C-alpha cells in the first residue's frame, strides 16, 4: 500500500533589513560581539514599553501582499506568555490568527524540479525574536543582540508532499524576501529557522478531508534548507515503516521532535500533552491602529519585480537560457550585479557568462558574497569584456589578479604588460623577422596542412612574449607564406 505525506512549514524569517528592532530603538544588525545592540526593552527591565517599528510593519504587509494574503483593517498585537531563559520579559509580543494578523489565507506559486506548484498560506504574522543562547560545556550564555528583532512567521497549509517541494518553497521564499529588501535571508546568521510538520496517510483516501490525516509530528528549529528536506525524508520513512510494521499507533504520536544533523535522524523532545497554555491576550501597550488605504496602496506600489518575473525577462528579452536565468536570479544581489553590468552597455550573454562563470565560482570557492569582492559592474564592463586589447585567456588572469590584489583591471593589464600588440605595422615587422630567420622551415611549409602555421606563430609569440594579437599574426603570416610558396 502507498502513502502520501502531508507536510506543512512554519518559516521564521528575521527581517534583517530594518534599521532598528521591531519594538525597541536598538540597532537591528548582526554582530559577533555579544550584547552590543541592546536597549533596556530588549532585556526586559522594569518599566520598559514596546514601540512599534513602522518599517517592520511595512515589510510584513509587503510580504503579506506578495503571498496573496488578506491584510487587516486594524493592526494590533498579542502577548504570548511563557517562561523561557532567552526571553527576558517572559512573554513575546506577537500576533494571533484571530481575528487577523498582518496576512491571512493566501497562496504562493513556486517551481519544483521544473514543475509549477502552489502552496496555501494560512497566515503570516509579525513578532519579536528572542535572545540567542550559547550552550557551553557546563553553562549557557545569553546574547541579547537578537532580542526584539523583527521576525516574520509564515505558516503554510500541509500542502507539500515531499522534502524537495518544501525545500523548493523555502528557496523561492528566500528570493522573495531578498527581492523585497526585507531580509538578507542568511542562514549562517540564523535569519531563517523552520518548524516542519509531517504526517502520512493512505494514498487512496481523500487528502481534502482532515479526518483522513495521520498523526502530525513536528520538528522544531530546523536551521538549513537541506535539513528541512532531509528531516522530512527521514520522517516519511520512519512513519511509513511504522505503518508497515503495524506499530504506527504506538510509535507515531503527536509530539515535537528535533532534527539531529549528526545522526541524520529526528529525536523526540516532548509530547503535545505537555503543550504550554500561552494565555494570549491583546498587548495593552500598543494601541490598535488603522491601516489606511493610502498607506497600503503605497506599499503595494513599492513591490519590486520579483525573481520569477526577472527570470522570464532574461529569457525573453536577453535570449538567455532557462538554466542561466535561474542561476542569475537566485540571489538578488547577483542578479542586480548582472543587471547593472548590462545597463552599462555590456552584451547580456557575455555578462551572464562572466557572472555565472568566473564570479560565482570565485564566490563559492571562497564562500563569500558578491559584496565582499573587489569587483564592480563598471570594472567588469570596462576592462574584462569590452576591451579587445587583451585576450580572453588574459582576461581570466586579470580577473583573478583584480580580486587578489585589489587593483583596477586597467592597472593589472598595465603592470603585467598584458597589452596586446594589435598594430599591424609592428606585427608585420616581427612576421618578416621570423620569416627571415627560418628559411628551412619555409622550405618544408605545406599550405595544405592546417598545422603547418603553428611553428611560425609560435616564433612570433615568443618574440612578443605572447602579446601579439593572434588573429592578426595568423592572417598576416599565412598570407606571406602562401605568397612565398606560389
Amino acid at each position, binding site marked *: 500500500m502507498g502513502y502520501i505525506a502531508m507536510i506543512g512549514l512554519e518559516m521564521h524569517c528575521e527581517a534583517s533589513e530594518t534599521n532598528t528592532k521591531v519594538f525597541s530603538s536598538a540597532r537591528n544588525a548582526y554582530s559577533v560581539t555579544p550584547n552590543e545592540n541592546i536597549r533596556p526593552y530588549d*532585556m526586559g527591565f522594569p*518599566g*520598559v514599553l514596546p514601540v512599534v517599528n513602522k518599517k517592520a510593519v511595512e515589510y510584513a504587509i509587503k510580504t503579506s501582499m506578495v503571498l496573496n494574503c488578506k491584510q487587516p483593517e486594524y493592526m494590533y498585537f498579542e502577548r504570548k506568555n511563557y*517562561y523561557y531563559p532567552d526571553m527576558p520579559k517572559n512573554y513575546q509580543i506577537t500576533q494571533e490568527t484571530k481575528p487577523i494578523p498582518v496576512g491571512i489565507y493566501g497562496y504562493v506559486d513556486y517551481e519544483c524540479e521544473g514543475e509549477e506548484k502552489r502552496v496555501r498560506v494560512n497566515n503570516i504574522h509579525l513578532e519579536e525574536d528572542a535572545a540567542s543562547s550559547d550552550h557551553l560545556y557546563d553553562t549557557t550564555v545569553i546574547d541579547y543582540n537578537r532580542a526584539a528583532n523583527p521576525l516574520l512567521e509564515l505558516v503554510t497549509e500541509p500542502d507539500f508532499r515531499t522534502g524537495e517541494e518544501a525545500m523548493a518553497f523555502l528557496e523561492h521564499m528566500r528570493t522573495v524576501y531578498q527581492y523585497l529588501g526585507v531580509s538578507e535571508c542568511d542562514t549562517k546568521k540564523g535569519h531563517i529557522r523552520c518548524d516542519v510538520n509531517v504526517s502520512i496517510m493512505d494514498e487512496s483516501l481523500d487528502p481534502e478531508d482532515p479526518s483522513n490525516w495521520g498523526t502530525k509530528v513536528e520538528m522544531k528549529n530546523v536551521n538549513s534548507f537541506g535539513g528541512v528536506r532531509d528531516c522530512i525524508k527521514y520522517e516519511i520513512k520512519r512513519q511509513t515503516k511504522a505503518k508497515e510494521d503495524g506499530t504506527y499507533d504506538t510509535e507515531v504520536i503527536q509530539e515535537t521532535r528535533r532534527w539531529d544533523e549528526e545522526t541524520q535522524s529526528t529525536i523526540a523532545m516532548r509530547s503535545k500533552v505537555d503543550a504550554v497554555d500561552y*494565555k494570549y491576550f491583546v498587548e495593552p501597550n500598543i494601541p490598535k491602529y488603522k491601516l489606511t488605504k493610502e498607506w497600503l496602496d503605497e506599499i503595494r506600489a513599492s513591490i519590486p519585480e520579483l525573481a520569477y518575473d526577472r527570470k522570464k525577462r532574461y529569457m525573453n528579452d536577453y535570449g538567455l537560457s532557462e538554466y542561466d536565468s535561474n542561476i542569475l536570479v537566485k540571489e538578488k544581489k547577483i542578479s542586480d550585479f548582472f543587471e547593472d553590468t548590462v545597463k552599462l552597455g555590456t552584451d547580456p550573454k557575455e555578462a551572464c557568462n562572466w557572472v555565472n562563470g568566473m564570479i560565482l565560482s570565485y564566490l563559492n570557492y571562497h564562500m563569500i558574497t558578491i559584496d565582499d569582492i573587489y569587483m564592480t559592474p563598471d570594472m567588469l564592463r570596462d576592462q574584462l569584456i569590452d576591451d579587445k586589447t587583451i585576450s580572453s585567456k588574459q582576461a581570466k588572469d586579470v580577473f583573478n589578479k583584480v580580486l587578489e590584489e585589489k587593483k583596477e583591471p586597467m592597472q593589472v593589464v598595465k603592470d603585467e604588460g598584458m597589452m596586446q600588440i594589435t598594430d599591424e605595422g609592428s606585427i608585420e615587422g616581427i612576421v618578416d623577422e621570423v620569416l627571415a630567420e627560418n628559411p628551412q622551415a619555409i622550405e618544408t611549409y605545406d599550405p595544405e596542412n592546417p598545422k603547418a602555421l603553428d611553428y611560425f606563430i609560435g616564433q612570433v609569440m615568443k618574440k612578443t612574449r605572447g602579446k601579439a594579437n593572434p588573429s592578426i599574426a595568423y592572417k598576416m603570416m599565412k598570407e606571406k607564406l602562401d605568397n612565398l610558396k606560389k
Partner: protein
Amino acid sequence: MKYMNKSLSELHKMLKNGEVTSEELIKESLELSHEVQDKYNAFVTILDDAKGTKITDNVLSGIPCGIKDNYSTRGVLSTGSSNTLKDYVPFFDATAYAKLKEAGAVMVNKTVMDEFGMGGTGTTGHTGVVLNPWDPSRMCAGSSAGSACAVAAGVYPYATGSDTGDSIRKPAAYCGIVGYKPTYGMISRYGLFPFASSLDHLGVLTRNVKDAAIVVDNMKGIDKYDMTSWDSSKIHLANSLTGNVKGKKLCYIKEICDIAEYDNPSDELKEHMDNFFKAIDKCKELGMEVEEVSVDRTLLNALASVYVVISCAEATSNMSNLTGIIFGPRGEGKTWDEQTKDYRTKGFSSLIKRRFVIGSYVLQAKNQERYFRNAQRVRRLLVDAWKDLFKKYDAVILPVSSGPAKKLDGDKDILSKETVTLEEHLQVGNFGGFPSITIPDGFINNLPVALNITGNCYDDENVLNIAYALENAMDYKDQLAKEVK
C-alpha cells in the same frame, strides 16, 4: 516647620524674592523626612545628599518632592516596595521623573507603596506598614501610601503617585489631601514599574488643586517611548483654573449615594453622605447644576470583579520579567527555572502570589472566555455607561470610600458586600482612562473624608477647574495632618 506647609506658588515666590534658598527648603524637607519616617514609616529611601537647584521661572524649581518607589530613578534605589527588587538601581529615568528633574524639582525621598502597587492598604511593602499621620492606628490606604502620608504630614508640597484602581485617589482621601490622575496617556508610563498596563496611570498627591495642576503640567507630554501617550501641549492645567463654574453640570449616582440604598447604614456612613451632600449644596451655590442619575445596579455590582480579573491578568504577565536572572537577587537552584522559582517564592508577598494565581487562571485557554473576555466586555459596558453621563454632564461627583481611614487591625483588604461599590467605584476612572481627582470634603471624628470628581477623557482642564472652585468654597484646602488623640 517653616516652609514645607506652604503651597508651590508661595514657595516659588519666596525663592524668587530671595527670602529662602533651595538648599534651605531641602534641609527642612530632609529633617521632616526623618521625623515622618520614624513616626509613620513612609519612605524606602531618604536622599540625604539631595542638592538644591537653580531657581528658574518654573514653579517647581528648587522645591523638594517625593517620588513613589515604582518610578525608575536613575542611580537611586527603586524597589517598588518589593523584596524582588530590594537592591535594584535603575540606569534610566522614568520619563515623568525626568521631566520633573528638568523642571528643577528636587527629589528628597522615595515613598513606600503596596508591593508593585497591588493592594489598597499601604501595608504590603517590603519595608513594612505605612501609618496614617492623622491616626497611626489607621492605614493610609494604598498603594501610594508613603506619598499620601508625607504630603499630609507636610514633608513637601507634593509627591508623585500611580493609580491602577484608586491608588492615588483613595490614599489622598484617607490622608485629607488632593489626589489627581489625569487622562490615560497624558503622562508617559515609560519607566513606571507596570502593574496592569491598560489601567496604570501616573499622577500626583498635593494639598490643593492648583498644586496638582502645576505638577501634572510638568509631568505630562507625548513620549516616543510610550505609544499610549498623546500630545497634550494645548492643555494648560494650571492656567485653566478660573474658578468660574457657573452653568457646569454634575451628576451623582443614586445607587451609590442614596443612604436608603443601604440596609443597615452605619453612623459613619451616614455622616460621610451628609458631608457629601453638603458639598453638593456648595456646588449649587457656585452656580453648578447637580442631578441624581441612576446606573444599572447589576453593572455596578460587577465593577469590583472586573477590576480583579483584568488587573490580575495583566499583572501576572507584566511581572513575569521578575526572575532574578538579569536583575534582582539571584535565587538558589541548579537550573534557571529552579532559580526563578526560588526567587519568586521568596520575593513576593502572599497577596501578590494570590493575584498571580487569579491572573493565570482567568487567562488560561479554557477559562479565558468566561472570565477575562467577559470582564473586558463588562469593562466596556461600564465605560459606556459613564460616557453616556458625560454626554450630558461635565463630571460625575461621588463620595470616596465608605468613611475615613480604616483601622490597621481590622479586616484590611476584605470588602463588605454592602459598600463594595462605594469602595471601588473609582476603578471606573481607570477602566475608561478618565481624568479623576479626589479632594477632602469634611471630617468624621476628626478624621478626613473626601469626594471625587471624574470627567471625560481629555477634559482634564474642566475637571480640575470644578474641583478648584469647590475646594475654594469649602474649608479643607492646604490641610496638614493633625494627629487625633
